[in-house]
């Protein structure tokens, strides 16, 4: 299952996503959720074995792209976003 989060990492939406997450799910952070780059200790980075990706163009526009790069966080372009939706039959948005 793919979870898409577009709210900041400490929002209600983010907390709810973390409660709903299964170990083999995938998470994509878009829009305001790319702020998670600023929080190395955000629960989403560690709470499960779920893979967490950032949408590159939103990280760029919001000024956290180079920081994400320095930290080695997995960034995907819009094509990669589409691939994540190809790989996951079910997709849930948290907003």
């Amino acid at each position: 299952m793919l979870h898409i989060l577009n709210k900041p990492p400490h929002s209600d939406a983010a907390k709810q996503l973390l409660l709903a997450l299964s170990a083999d799910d995938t998470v994509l952070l878009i829009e305001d959720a790319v702020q998670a780059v600023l929080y190395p200790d955000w629960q989403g980075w560690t709470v499960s074995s779920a893979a967490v990706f950032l949408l590159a163009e939103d990280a760029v526009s919001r000024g956290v792209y180079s920081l994400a790069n320095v930290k080695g966080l997995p960034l995907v372009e819009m094509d990669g976003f589409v691939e994540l939706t190809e790989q996951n039959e079910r997709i849930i948005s948290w907003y």
Partner: protein
Amino acid sequence: MTRENERLVVIRHAPYSSNQLREGLDVALVTAAFGGSVSLLFLGQGVLALLKEQTVGAPGQKATLPTIDMLEMYDIENLLVPAETLQAFNITSDQLVEGVTVIPTSELPSLFQRYASVLNF
């Protein structure tokens, strides 16, 4: 873990402050009206829609509680709230309307896996 041929509608916004709750419930009601089976999960602020002491709002503001009461008529009987949400709001289950099932928070991941269709409101 079978995927039930059912829709899960997730309500995550409080009554009155926006139309998100009402329009989420409308999707559940229409699903049921079309003969589909639907469960409702109330997360976070959404649990406030279930407080039984809610009354009609200020003049001209439509109340949410009558819609909640209507769910049963549409055979929507699966109203779920995770224990964590009740704890976070300091709400006890006797403050809620009849017919709500409190589920262990740890069951949320499997709940989301179980439904073929999930709509988050």
